[in-house]
């Protein structure tokens, strides 16, 4: 006799296994942050968080260094979001609604730049930044991060504008509205979901960025969290609980925001890349 429940049970076990694998490392980060010293090095690992240790999060923030890092990351990420979307909207609009000479070249460049490794571009950009006095500043990191995330932002927004009907826009144009007014008043409100997705992509691209931040910024007070946290590696002075608590506070916003907009992000990333 064939049991109808076997397939279902296997599926449930499979799903739980996948979820366990997906969630465990971040759970472990949280548990490690909330494990007392004595248990951390005991022969039996503690597998659940000890909430009486919660002060480690507060202490990490109160100590000041981590707060500065997170604030720097916030400034860089917010600046990158505004700049890349401010440049990406008109670029996406031009690519979507107009045919002009050089359009193919622009598209190819946008696709091509997405495969350039940051590590390759560090050297020439360092020279450029030194010449224009952009080293050791949050503004410089905003510029470079925007340049790296702009292609995907523009391509996603182009795709979103492609999906809008032209009729409203054309009638507004016939009524004498200027192209920029049409874009800002009519198209931009209609692509709000894609804007949200690109905002999250741009924000966390800059939030996570490491190579430029570690190379272009020297003043400890200007370091973002990615650099601060990476510096914990191989350093022995900081208790592992603090390291994990700071990392967790660095990770949690990225995860929470992605959960909200993941549908649009995935649709946008694939749509932006499909043309590649």
């Amino acid at each position: 006799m064939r049991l109808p429940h076997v397939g279902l049970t296997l599926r449930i076990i499979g799903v739980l296994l996948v979820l366990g694998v997906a969630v465990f490392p971040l759970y472990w980060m949280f548990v490690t942050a909330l494990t007392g010293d004595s248990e951390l090095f005991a022969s039996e690992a503690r597998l659940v968080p000890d909430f009486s240790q919660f002060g480690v999060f507060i202490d990490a923030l109160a100590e000041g260094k981590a707060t500065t890092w997170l604030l720097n990351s916030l400034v860089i990420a917010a600046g990158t979001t505004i700049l890349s979307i401010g440049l990406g909207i008109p670029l996406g609009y031009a690519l979507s609604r107009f045919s002009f000479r050089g359009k193919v070249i622009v598209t190819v460049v946008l696709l091509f730049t997405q495969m350039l490794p940051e590590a390759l571009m560090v050297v020439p950009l360092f020279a450029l930044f030194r010449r224009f006095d952009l080293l050791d500043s949050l503004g410089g990191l905003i510029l470079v991060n925007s340049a790296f995330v702009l292609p995907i932002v523009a391509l996603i927004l182009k795709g979103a504008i492609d999906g809008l009907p032209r009729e409203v826009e054309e009638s507004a144009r016939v009524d004498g509205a200027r192209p920029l007014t049409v874009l800002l008043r009519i198209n931009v409100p209609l692509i709000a979901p894609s804007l949200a997705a690109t905002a999250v992509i741009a924000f966390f691209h800059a939030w996570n960025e490491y190579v430029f931040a570690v190379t272009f910024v020297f003043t400890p007070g200007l370091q973002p969290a990615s650099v601060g946290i990476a510096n914990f590696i191989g350093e022995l002075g900081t208790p592992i609980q603090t390291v994990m608590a700071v990392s967790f506070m660095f990770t949690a916003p990225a995860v929470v925001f992605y959960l909200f907009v993941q549908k649009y992000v995935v649709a946008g990333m694939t749509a932006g890349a499909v043309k590649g």
Partner: protein
Amino acid sequence: MTALEQQQLPGPRSGTRRRGSPLGSKWTPYFFLAPAALFILVFQVVPLAQEVFLSFTRTSLLNPTHSTWVGFDNFARIFGDEDFRRTLLITLVYVVVCVVVAVGTGLAVALLLNKGFRGRGLARALVTIPWAAPGIAVALIAIWMLNPDYGIVNRFLDTIGLGVPGGAILDSPRYALPAILVTTIWQLFPFTSVVLLSALQAVPPHLTEAATMDGAGRWWTFRAVTWQSIKPTVGLLALLMTIWSLRRFELIWLMTKGGPVGATETLVIDLYSQAFDSKQLGSAAAVGMVGIVISLIVIAGSRFVARAAEREAR
């Protein structure tokens, strides 16, 4: 935005309105394009051109403005270097394993989540978590979990009797690359899963039903209907995974710096250490060019395959 507006309308407003065709003038697209294009030119195209130039020179990091033109010497030298050939091989292994396992796991997970069940939305959201986590945090937690003395992975492996002697996985030429691969794939499989899941949900249900009614088994239905319909998505993901893996830096750099003894040194790691440890900007740029050429070949190849498949489908 106001600067843009002014550029676009040199004359008084009323004047432009009178003249304005419904599509604006032929310059309109360039006004929208110009700021972003200028930006990408300054921060991407010009620096890349400089890198191309550097790859044909001998230039030291300590004196970067002084370059000596050496033609193809850098390329000749790196290809003659046994370490570089090993780097290419490691890059190949890393990329191929990432692509195959990330796409394969993604497909398995997508099939698992494709049937309706209670809590599927939650499951789908939770699966996304690794992809959303910053690479720095992933590297940090991986290093802690792999800690030889207190890491949970070693404790677990010891418990089931598969412990690595000494436990120093990331210091072992044999196990460091597999450990980095597992970490990378852990971060990638949510993306492939979610993309493939939406591809699976676009498979027309009447086709699978028709196949089942014709008496086709599950495997046959999958091959004849589902696979045919998701094939373009699989191809696209394979291409994306290849390009992303070729340029991945921070995860590998933070976990091993390419070590031990070069066992995890991919092209990007090699170019970074050539530039900043050996201070050889010329050879670093040459290594970077090799990576770019490989990416371009992969892209061209994938277009060729996609076109051939399209022709066959007709």
